[in-house]
């Protein structure tokens, strides 16, 4: 009895579950840094989906796109965290509920 190797659907379902957990965290938490961490979790799950398709459709573009996603995530991390530091300096809080000056 031969066991088949892990089919691609399992990797994609794992990617979907991680993405959903990231969405729940980004919608639920009030701390801006934890929201940022959930965004990184979502980007990571999409990377997993790209690499899965790159392996099972035998293309290199998936790997390259994941590489670009990682580079853009690094750039976004640096600028986003600098914005958080500036926000904390001027408002003494990092709760996303209290940064509501643009709300009507």
């Amino acid at each position: 009895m031969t066991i088949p190797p892990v089919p691609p659907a399992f990797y994609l379902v794992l990617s979907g579950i991680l993405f959903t957990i990231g969405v729940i965290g980004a919608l639920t938490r009030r701390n801006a840094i934890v929201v940022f961490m959930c965004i990184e979790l979502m980007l990571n799950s999409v990377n997993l989906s790209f690499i899965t398709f790159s392996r099972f459709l035998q293309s290199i573009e998936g790997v390259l796109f994941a590489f670009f996603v990682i580079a853009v995530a690094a750039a976004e991390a640096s600028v986003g965290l600098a914005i958080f530091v500036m926000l904390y300096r001027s408002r003494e809080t990092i709760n996303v509920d209290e940064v509501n000056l643009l709300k009507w």
Partner: protein
Amino acid sequence: METVGTILQWLIFLGMAFTSILASVLLITRKNPIHSALFLVLNFLCVAVIYLLLYSQFIAIIQVLVYAGAIVMLIVFVIMLLDLEEELRSRLKLFYSKVIGSALAVLFLFGLIYGLVATSPTGKTGGYTAEKMSANVKAVGEALFTQYLFPFEVVSILLVAAIIGAVILSKKKLS
């Protein structure tokens, strides 16, 4: 001999999948943001092992270096710089909004799984077979520096812009 390989592949995949899901669930529920950052590192490392299962060693190493190494370090530094108090106790209105948001996200997951199961994933099979991709860095380098050279240079400009932005944004105003 092949069944040992596939059994090991299944075991590693299931172990890493459950660990990463557990780590991400614990990430979104911890009160202390440092604990959340540590669970984020665990999640990134588990996904890096899954990348190794998918025979992409390049992205696995890049994931550990950049994601788990640099980005989480940045996050931990910023958490230590800011003096964060605990989140306020959620009132009932906030609790309902959390439940509705979570329910919508789980609905989205069901839609994803339905789209995965209903039709088989179609796509044109490319030319990068498993043998060619086994020299992973060479294959990525071949494609990145010949066919995708322009996006590569644009990404380098983007990184320079991000560095300049981060430096300017964190300067203290001398007023």
